[in-house]
């Protein structure tokens, strides 16, 4: 990791919002390229957060505060990214399926994807199939991601995939799923492109599909 971004990087790892904001300001002030600040100071930090989570050292609170620090920095950096034409890693429309209101997992996946440079369309909870269809048809989503916590809402995963198929959009988008009762086997059964068991692995999966 580049020494110039270590303050920003560490602020994100520690969940230090003020430190992340200061880190971005300092880097911009020193004339660093926005794209490099993003890549070296922020995406690299969130990659480390993901690794720590997969290793069982970071848990949900640590991920949340790191992601918030990253987001705080990103808010300052965004206008500079747009004006310097930095491309996102891809666009992901994410939500929990119709009937399911449990969003901590979905929120973590959204945060981690954003931390990896993806652009997020957050469809929220209890998202009807047509919201996902809309995100592909008009929203430019490259990936559609949805989750369910409950066995009773899981069936809406297939309903959502069918809706995308029915709209003639299935080959225009990659579909990834997750959630406590969901398995790789289930993903295969319903025709999803991938399954991830946690937010960090969701990032690797999204990257591998695009």
């Amino acid at each position, binding site marked *: 990791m580049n020494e110039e971004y270590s303050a920003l990087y560490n602020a994100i790892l520690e969940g230090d919002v003020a430190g992340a904001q200061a880190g971005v300001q300092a880097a911009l002030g020193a004339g660093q390229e926005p794209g490099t600040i993003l890549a070296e100071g922020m995406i690299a930090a969130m990659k480390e957060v993901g690794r720590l989570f997969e290793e069982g050292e970071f848990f*949900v609170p640590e991920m*949340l*505060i790191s992601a918030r620090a990253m987001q705080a920095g990103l808010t300052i950096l965004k206008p500079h990214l747009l004006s310097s034409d930095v491309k996102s890693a891809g666009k992901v429309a994410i939500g929990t399926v119709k009937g399911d*209101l449990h969003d901590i*997992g979905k929120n973590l996946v959204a945060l981690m994807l954003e931390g990896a440079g993806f652009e997020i369309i957050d469809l929220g909870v*209890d998202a009807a199939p047509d919201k996902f269809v809309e995100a592909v048809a008009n929203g430019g989503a490259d990936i559609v991601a949805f989750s369910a916590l409950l*066995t*009773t809402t899981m069936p809406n995963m297939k309903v959502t995939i069918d809706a995308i198929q029915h709209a003639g959009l299935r080959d225009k988008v990659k579909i990834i799923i997750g959630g*406590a009762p969901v398995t790789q086997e289930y993903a295969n059964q319903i025709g999803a492109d991938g399954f991830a068991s*946690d937010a960090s692995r969701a990032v690797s999966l999204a990257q591998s599909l695009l």
Partner: protein
Amino acid sequence: MALNHEAPDRCPMQISFTPEFASLLLKDLKMGADKLHNPHGGGNTYELERALGEDLLLTSVGWANSYYQGAENYVDEWGIGWRSAEYTTPYGNGYYTEINQHPLADDRAIDSYQPPDPTRPELYHEAEWVLKNFKDEYWIVGVTVTTIFECAWGLRGYERMLTDFALNPDLAQRLLDIPYRYHLTAAKKLTQMGVDMIWIGDDVGAQNAMIISPKMWRKFLKPLVANFIAELKAINPQVKVAYHSDGAIYPIIPDLIEVGLDVLNPIQPASMDPVRLKQDFGDKLCFWGSLDEQHTLPFGSAADVQAEVQTRLQTLGKNGGLILGPTHHVQLDTPMQNFWAMTNAITQTPYPKPKSYDRGKPAGIPAREGNMK
């Protein structure tokens, strides 16, 4: 328990239901009911549980009773707002109740917050009635689940509570204290009244790992759980304590044993291996639950269900120490034939006498290690 001076002829059983499944079951059994069924036990008539041959009767005091209060939006007595979320299954529709309003989302609301009063006599009328009518024949469980963390995040907001742990530990502690005090008062009262077991707990496990780190759990929750158990056992040294957490909580099981836990619940098998749990902790803990509701009960065949019952009896229940049943309330997506396959397998499988069984022990005083009698 239902066992009066005799060795258990089969494994003790406990099953709870969502209100919709309870309705379906009552119809199947040709029994009527005019009250909304409470999955946690408070206010139930227990006809259903007794008709099935369950061995434990649950009576609940505290925030857990705020679940499943109705199909319309409501605000409970803690100020927490609820809405219903409908779901459909091949066997009918139902609704869950989900929180949509947190009274302590704003830091400034905490100082002036008044929780409900846990000493109101009417809170304990059901427990009184259950004990009076069923104490001799059933294992009576006083339920004060959602004991600390869950009620606290209900008040505060889930993500906010989790970030409070990391960024504002003093505030987090104050929030945890609110439901802790309430439920401890209630559990002490239930213990004084004579329940056989108190059931506490909070969901701190996700599917594959803990939600908060073991370190964080030990810092914020372990001292409270330790004191909770100590105060109950000071009132009645024979009272048993069961702890509920969904998901994978393996790292804190030794801690729970250390602070005096007797029974671990619900043993979500897709998250923690029952065989490994028995191997590692079977001499120090009893287990309650273990029949899978993420895969087997809703999606397996009746034969799969029966096989899982037998497997648990032979492993998790070897030499006793098991209260068998589904890990969570039975939902409408469990086919009725799977439900009956489960209950019949449990009630009809003879239970080999545990090695350590002593015929001379009077009923109602179970050994701490292994055997629940």
